[in-house]
């Protein structure tokens, strides 16, 4: 799966969680949770969404590798590769 496709899926899920977010201006290297004001419940929903859409079950110990959009894309590309 191409990185753009993964990014679109991430954005889809993020829009459900934070409908007011302007994802076009989302910084690639900024802390995702802080930027979008995502609490632990929202973050869990993001993980569940990724699991449902991409079939990737992300262990809790990997959560810190998903802290920015850029890192999330790297991680998911590797897992799906």
């Amino acid at each position: 799966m191409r990185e753009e496709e993964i990014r679109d899926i991430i954005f889809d899920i993020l829009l459900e969680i934070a409908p007011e977010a302007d994802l076009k201006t989302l910084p690639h290297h900024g802390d995702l949770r802080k930027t979008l004001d995502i609490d632990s419940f929202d973050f869990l929903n993001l993980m569940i969404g990724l699991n449902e859409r991409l079939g990737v079950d992300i262990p809790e110990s990997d959560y810190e590798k998903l802290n920015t959009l850029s890192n999330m894309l790297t991680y998911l590309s590797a897992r799906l590769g």
Partner: protein
Amino acid sequence: MVEFRMPSLGTDMKKGTLVEWKVKPGDHVKRGDIIAEVETEKGVIEIEVFVDGIIEKLLIQPGDEVLVGTPIALIRTEGQQETEIKAAAAEQDEGAQVKEGTESPLQYKACSIAAHRAKEQPEQTREKLRAEAGGEKRIKVSPAARKRAEELGLDLTTVRGTGPDGAISLADVEKAAIAGKPAERKAAWQIPTGPEGADFQLGMRRAIAAAMGRSNREIPHYYLETRIDLSRAVRWLTEENKKRSVKDRILPVVLLLKATALALTEVPALNGYWIEDRHQPVEAIHVGFAIALRQGGLIAPAIHHADLKSLDELMVDMKDLITRTRSGGLRSSEMTDATVTLTNLGDLGVESAFGLIYPPQVALVSFGRITDQPWVENGMIGIRPVVSATLAGDHRATDGRTGSQFLNALHRYLQEAERL
């Protein structure tokens, strides 16, 4: 026959707008069934009925905005049950006559508060209430409102006026038009802009202002804080979550919730209300869980019997409650039943919180962020995940000694997460 009245869904609610009836005359209903959807300052709430019976008559229409306490439906009950309800209602009426300026979330809250509120109304409001309940009144309408109603194809007899002598204003017509179209109704988070969103924001702020203003005026708060070592709890939870797929994982806040509920079983004085100038602890532990809304404001709906539920059940309940709080569909019992409130501001990064008690409750438990801190145990220093737990107590109801017993119990439960 029982008059079902517009329930009060919190100390801050004064009126509600009927969005939709879920029943029609002749329908059988059971206690706990959802019979209507009502729009309040806190969004659209599903209203549960409190008796078994048959719907005799619906007294208001979708779009009607009525004061808390206004009869909205007649329900026919049968035999013994009816006698009991009458007796209970009479008791509540009596209580309401004697006591002023308080509400009773005990027994059947909506009913008792409704009866009480109606008595509290000044004469002018009471007349309006009667007029609204009776439905027999000459309609006064502003020219702009009449024009707009025609444009919208809205029947003016279904619009409740909020102007002088119940005159219908343009705003009333707009509100009725919005409320009358459930299909176009938007969830709270979908209304960040425009007059509708501004109204919701204003309503929400006013609701919070009323409750928190009263809390700060009336409740002499005392605060206690303790830091709790969560290393055992976090380790246990990490191991537990490793075995689970992402859908079934438990968040740390669920451990805090369950430990809070269990600690309250040991220190029951903090679970309950201050009503009618006295402390009224209750046995059932319904934890109001403060949920922030993305567009601002918060709601603290109740997680029922939190002490009796497993961590898995609590996680499911919490997910469901957060989802419904943010997208609409909370039930009336969830809005009124909380016996204590828990806030977890730590999730957003603060280390500790000192909040205001939600009246008529007598305690608020706050947790901060779980952070790695230096910790000394048995003469050894190490780095541990630590959380700050704060108790706000109502000093009329309890003293610091009771509060510290609670925090100690909470600490103890969190050292044995596997038993939660």
